[in-house]
């Protein structure tokens, strides 16, 4: 069973982050929300593994 990676895993994290922000440029709040949802689905499909997805859904929850 594959495990969810929760340690740094992106090469050039700053670049990635800038690209992510950049994708939202000029979008209204509503458009941004829609975009986030689409991006999420694209990434989820790429991962595919249901155990990893489940772990990710949990990991993203606020723990406090």
């Amino acid at each position, binding site marked *: 069973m594959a495990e969810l990676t929760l340690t740094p895993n992106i090469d050039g994290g700053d670049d990635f982050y800038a690209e992510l922000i950049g994708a939202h440029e000029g979008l209204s709040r509503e458009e941004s*929300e*829609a975009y986030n949802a*689409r991006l999420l*689905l*694209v990434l989820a499909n790429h991962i595919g593994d249901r155990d990893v997805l489940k772990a990710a859904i949990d990991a993203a929850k606020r723990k406090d």
Partner: protein
Amino acid sequence: MFDDRYTLAYRLYPYEKHADQDKPAPVRHPVVVMGGGPIGVATAIDLARQNIPCVVLDDHEGVGMGSRAICFAKRCLEIADRYGAGKPMVEKGVTWNLGKVFHRDDKVFEFNLLPEEGHEFPAFINLQQPYFESFMIERLYELQSQGAPVEIRGKNRVDSVDVKDDHVTLEITTPDGPYTMEADWLIGTDGANSPLREMMGLEFTGKVFEDSFLIADIKMINDSFPTERWFWFEPTHGSGASTLLHRQPDDVWRVDFQIGWDVDRKEELKEENIRKRLDAFLGEGVEYEMVWSSIYTFQCKRMKEFRHGRVVFAGDAAHQVSPFGARGANSGMQDVDNLGWKLAMVIGGKAPESLLDSYNHERIHGADENILNSTRSTDFITPKSEASHILRNAVLDLAEHHEFARPLVNSGRLSVPCVYDGSPLNTANALSGGPEITRPGAPCPDAPLGDEFLLPRLGDRFILLTIDADGPDSFEEDGVEVTRLALSADDDKTGALAARYLGEAKSAVYLIRPDQHVAARRDSFSDTQFRKALRRATGKV
């Protein structure tokens, strides 16, 4: 005193005074079925075919007007065929494979539900419920004329019941006044609002969905739409939050508009207002006649237990699902399929009463699966929160361009029969390399056998199916008989039989229940093991 609650499409069982009504003491019947909808009639046919006397009581005199169910799935048709009513349904019904999904005004994608080869029946047909019911009632009368101990009494309304340990007393109202009847067993198939549930003070719990749907069945006059299923999410023609267009026989199309919760039903149901919606949706110049219209809301609910001593519930009375995915009548037919042989065995003294608890177990499992699936479709079609609305639309947007998102689009999942995993009647799998789809608990998939098909050969008795394996022609254990059906993988040149029943195995022996679910399987026959499996499958272990 005796008003109809709905208009009849076909008056198939007009009231006739029965001799029972003048008897000084109540007459006792082995089985009384309360409610002559599709599920009650199916129950009667199932029992009649096993020679168990059965009386159906209905508070109307025939089949209700207006088509509620239109989509009947393969398993349901296979069961109806076993009862002798499946073929006319398929003949009359519309078979379709092509579907289109739209979001706002754009086509998102289209799909072709290419049917799997090697099944006698299609994956589903569209057929108005009144036709479905009529074919079944005709079949019931046919059996009756051949001497089967079955009858259906119109305008016999059950007004109260007194449930005892070993029988039930029913108070019935007829146009000639009341009478009392007794039943060894009472089957409650009196629909989603089940008065019987109420009389017995039994709960029906689950989820109510705050949305209404306007159905219009229309007959096209000068225009024809293709035989496809079209589903719109958020159409901009202002006709509803989602719209479904689906073809039925007789050039009738079902249009189903989602119109929200707070609606003025009377206003919405005025023909002029329905026409306004339809015209906006179909475009100018399409001429049609209105056949039937109605507004429905729905819920996903079930009873905690389907069996209460001598009273057993089936169909909508036991569980109700949203119409998305067509699981109402389809799953009710599977209830009957499951109940019929068990009840007959218990009445015939061939199995302990506790066998009926496995009906409770297996069909609750089925109901939960159906409720889960139809709730998910409903959540997709009518998102309940802003976040789920955003995600739903994201799926639709992506589906237009990327194949990966299409399976996530859920405008109703096709009803498939449930596998009774974990049922107390199953014997653990002992066929190594055997296919998953025929594991113990699974409904037998059909397979071609030359010009014939497998399922009709299984029939409705206990069967020992041997594929390239030895076994006795029949054996009996504690009053229950098992008959062998000897096949070879070579009997089906298409390879479907081997793929569905052997998998990696070279040979296989299956014990198959009368409802065509697998009870046990091994690679070869073993007298001890199969006798044990039979005892287990009849509730004796």
